[in-house]
């Protein structure tokens, strides 16, 4: 009787099964072992399991005497009473109990324990006690010969209790180690069967899912390739012609242009080039989305990457009268990253900062080991103790003094094609893909990118990159 009701999914585990002696023993070979044991010590014994069924019955030197008794009706019935008593005796883990039979012969009853529970008992005997006891063999009928009985009784092995304890102790040890092996084997077999059954069912299910998603992906992939081919061919080819012909016009290949004409054609060319950039970054993005991004990781000092990114945007900043203030760390901060990809991210962030800063504004770049909010995908579902903490991250913060981003727009700016304000594309150019690409590149480094902004004060974009290579 188990007290707490078990719900079906918590049903009995194979590991909690209470094994019986029969389940743990190979009875055939175990009986052979018992036979030879009884022969060796000339004392027979019986083994009962915990439901009192007789599993083993081997005769020793007492066999003939018992058989003689048994051949007389009264002897037989007394014997059977004795056996019933012994069979019914409950043993505890506490230890062996000695039982004296009506003939004066003795039995030692020993519990068979497994993991502290009684699985059965050994009834070891009969043997004769060291000091002879007068057998009470009267009243067994006319045909019963005291002399014959005594002759047989003398053949029963005499043993001191100390010796019997030793012999039985050894038998128990043998049985326990056989049980241990049997238990190990039984558990292994059950776990193995259960694990393979579960594993098989899982695999079937996974296979089905994989087949389905494979079909879906194949279809998507086809569509994407088609789309890419169309984009590159249908858009780039005519665009190259537009740019090429504008260039030729500007070079005067179709005759001198008036100042006004020159200005118009320049605009056509400039916008054409912008459009080409747009198409190129869409292709870039599709490549990242398609998982074709390969990182070329190497040990790099992040300060160097920051400085070279700043120098890339300097000409543009100078043109708009914006100053760039760059603070790197005193000691090199070595990271395992793809330098080119991270530079691409930083140039993008810096470009935005310069673009959105007011005239004479200030853009700040700061490298450090800042604080990291531990609630992201990497830490999802982990207890605090196993989460990554801030000290393992390098931060690169890019702040501008621009118009800032409204709080309700903040969490969308990393979405592809999202623009805070449709008009900003027109005003400042850009595809709305830059930040989406930046985020993908940073995440590919197990990092993350965060933005904080105050309307009319400016925005700060912070890139977090893991300092140690933590897998």
């Amino acid at each position: 009787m188990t007290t707490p009701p078990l719900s079906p999914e918590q049903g009995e585990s194979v590991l909690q099964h209470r094994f019986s002696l029969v389940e743990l023993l190979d009875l055939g070979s175990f009986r052979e072992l018992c036979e030879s044991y009884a022969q060796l010590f000339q004392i027979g014994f019986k083994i009962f399991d915990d439901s009192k069924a007789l599993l083993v019955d081997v005769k020793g030197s007492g066999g003939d005497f018992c058989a003689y008794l048994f051949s007389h009706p009264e002897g037989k019935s007394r014997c059977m009473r004795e056996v019933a008593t012994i069979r019914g005796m409950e043993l505890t883990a506490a230890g062996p109990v000695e039982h004296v039979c009506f003939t004066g012969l003795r039995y030692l009853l020993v519990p068979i324990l497994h993991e502290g529970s009684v699985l059965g008992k050994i009834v070891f005997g009969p043997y004769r006690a060291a000091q002879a006891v007068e057998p009470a063999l009267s009243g067994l009928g006319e045909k019963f010969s005291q002399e014959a009985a005594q002759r047989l009784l003398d053949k029963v092995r005499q043993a001191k209790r100390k010796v019997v304890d030793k012999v039985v102790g050894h038998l128990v040890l043998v049985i326990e180690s056989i049980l241990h092996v049997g238990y190990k084997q039984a558990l292994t077999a059950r776990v193995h069967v259960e694990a393979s059954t579960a594993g098989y069912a899982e695999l079937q299910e996974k296979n089905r899912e994989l087949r389905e998603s494979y079909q879906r992906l194949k279809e998507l992939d086809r569509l994407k390739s088609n789309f890419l081919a169309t984009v590159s061919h249908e858009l780039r080819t005519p665009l190259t012609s537009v740019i090429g012909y504008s260039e030729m016009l500007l070079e005067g290949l179709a005759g001198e242009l008036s100042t006004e004409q020159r200005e118009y054609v320049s605009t056509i060319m400039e916008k054409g080039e912008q459009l080409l950039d747009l198409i190129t970054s869409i292709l870039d993005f599709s490549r990242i989305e398609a998982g074709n991004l390969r990182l070329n990781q190497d040990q790099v000092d992040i300060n160097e990457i920051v400085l070279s990114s700043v120098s890339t945007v300097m000409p543009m900043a100078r043109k708009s009268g914006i100053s760039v203030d760059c603070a790197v760390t005193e000691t090199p901060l070595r990271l395992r990253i793809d330098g080119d990809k991270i530079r691409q991210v930083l140039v993008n962030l810096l470009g935005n900062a310069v673009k959105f800063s007011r005239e004479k504004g200030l853009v700040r770049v700061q490298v450090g080991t800042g604080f990291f909010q531990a609630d992201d995908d990497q830490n999802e579902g982990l207890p605090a103790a196993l989460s990554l903490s801030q000290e393992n991250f390098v931060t690169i913060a890019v702040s501008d003094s621009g118009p800032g981003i409204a709080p309700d727009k903040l969490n969308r700016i990393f979405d592809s094609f999202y623009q805070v304000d449709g008009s900003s594309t027109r005003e400042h150019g850009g595809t709305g893909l830059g930040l989406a690409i930046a985020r993908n590149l940073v995440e590919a480094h197990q990092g993350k990118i965060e933005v904080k902004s105050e309307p009319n004060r400016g925005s700060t974009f912070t890139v977090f990159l893991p300092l140690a290579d933590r897998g």
Partner: protein
Amino acid sequence: MVQINLEQREVTLKIVYYGPALSGKTTNLEAIHKLLDPGLCGRLMELDTADDRTLFFDLMPVVFRTESGFTVKVKLFTAPGQVMHDSTRRIILKGADGVAFVADSQMHLHKSNSDSWRGLTKNLKANGLEIGKIPVVIQFNKRDLPNIRSDEEIAMMANNGKEPVFKAVATRGEGVIETLEGILREAWRSLDQNFNMEQKLRIGEESFIRHVIKTKPGSHVQGGGL
């Protein structure tokens, strides 16, 4: 879930050592086996391959009798850490009363610790158990190696969580008993709340712990707690 057999006056608890491959779960059990009173703990059963990787599980029972005549069995299992044995891990977790999560302290193994923890969450769920509800302690093992998560960092992060955290060098037996004591305590409290263990067995938390953790004289190696 604890098995309480009033008829046979037997109670069986199950504690599972879980964690990523090679984090030292088997080593924990071996150390416990060495340190505990041999009269109480049974044979250590290891089911492993030739190169000592746990194939199915390891098992060591600790059995004691209360004065009120109950046989209390605490069965300590380890789950196999290698990724491919996921369904075995699920089977081992079935009916667990507590989990000792053995993490590898080495920095570069952060991801395998995390993956293993998520696997634990998932496998518990498959058994109708829930990570926030079942007693769990975390052990950061292999504190003797270089490039490990620092003590300060562990202390700081542990402060934010509710699972008791222990540090250990299982190969030297350090922190192993503390971890065992930690999970036994958590498990006992939770079982007592749900099943009135104290009333049923007529022993209290401290007495339960002392019964299981009866170390060989002079063998207990200190270490562990934060």
